[in-house]
């Protein structure tokens, strides 16, 4: 049955995302909060995260491009990005932010630039994967199935 196959694919894919560290238990928490009265909760939060992150990454790029780098400002942006990625369970993005803040503290421009590059990469990766996962979910729902959930990562 098609729904079965879709659900298996979905579970496999989800498991992979957790194992590779793209997502952590906080993402499972988001899924737990989704129900019939809020069927799009995960999609909504993840969309906010995408918007927020793109804005922050843009601001960071501009800030690091200045003659006189304002590390306080950069730290504030990274703090925000760290917070939002942590809130949705985007673990790898969060981890780069932690390193990023350390370079800010040290006022190390090179280090910051490297982190910016890295955080952009991690962001794009998790974005791609979350979008793929959401598409799988939508297919399951369209086929009349229920979205299975991994509880081992809660």
């Amino acid at each position, binding site marked *: 049955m098609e729904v079965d196959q879709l659900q298996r694919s979905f579970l496999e894919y989800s498991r992979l995302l957790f194992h590779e560290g793209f997502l952590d238990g*906080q993402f499972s928490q988001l899924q737990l909060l*989704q129900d019939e*009265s809020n069927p799009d909760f995960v999609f*909504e939060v993840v969309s*906010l995260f995408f918007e927020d992150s793109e804005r922050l990454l843009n601001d960071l790029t501009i800030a690091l491009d200045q003659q006189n780098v304002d590390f306080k400002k950069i730290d504030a942006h990274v703090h925000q990005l760290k*917070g939002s990625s942590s809130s949705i369970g985007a673990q790898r993005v969060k981890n780069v932010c932690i390193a990023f803040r350390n370079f800010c503290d040290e006022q190390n421009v090179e280090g910051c630039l490297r982190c910016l590059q890295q955080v952009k990469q991690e962001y794009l990766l998790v974005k791609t994967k979350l979008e793929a996962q959401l598409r799988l979910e939508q297919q399951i729902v369209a086929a009349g199935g*229920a*979205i299975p*959930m991994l509880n*081992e990562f809660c």
Partner: protein
Amino acid sequence: MGMAAADAQFHVLAVDDSLIDRKLIERLLKTSSFQVTTVDSGSKALEFLGWHHDEEDDDDDDERSNSNEVFVSPKNHQEVEVNLVITDYCMPGMTGYDLLKKMKESSFLRNIPVVIMSSENVPSRINRCLEEGAEEFILKPVRLSDVNKLRPHMMKSKCKDIIQNPQNQEKQDNNELIQSQSQSQQTSQPNNNTSNKRKSMDEGLSPDRTRPRYNDMTVMSN
């Protein structure tokens, strides 16, 4: 039937400058059957709570000592009943700590329990907040299990109401009983009428729990 519980719903004011975190905390609180209002700053929180700073008394900064009540407008009163304030620590302008302090200094706000959230695990920060009167310090990201810890704090301050209004006690007890029964049912998964929407996953797959499309444990709907 579930709507009867709405009378006894606790109202939580959540304060956070992050939109994502506001959305998350709102969902967490609503899932736990709380009524929620979210604001994005400490000053908006105070505004919502009905706190007004009286500008006239501001001229003597030197003599502003222990009591801030002199500077609070006589028309201060709590316009909306709030049973708990949960606030982020790191916010631009007024921090969560500043908000906590202002509330504890106010004669009519100091009895509202305050919980602080922070992404940073800084012991000195935590102690400072607890010493200032915060009930609890929660590390972000906030989870359902954290929100479950909030109810006792709200019930504690409700008890003060009960003492003052004993005739309401029985009604409140019944409503709270309904709420706690539904909540304990939420943790187990019933298998009755949702078979067409839920899938059992025991055909060779690992013991993964299926998240039901229908959550028939929804007690409240705001």
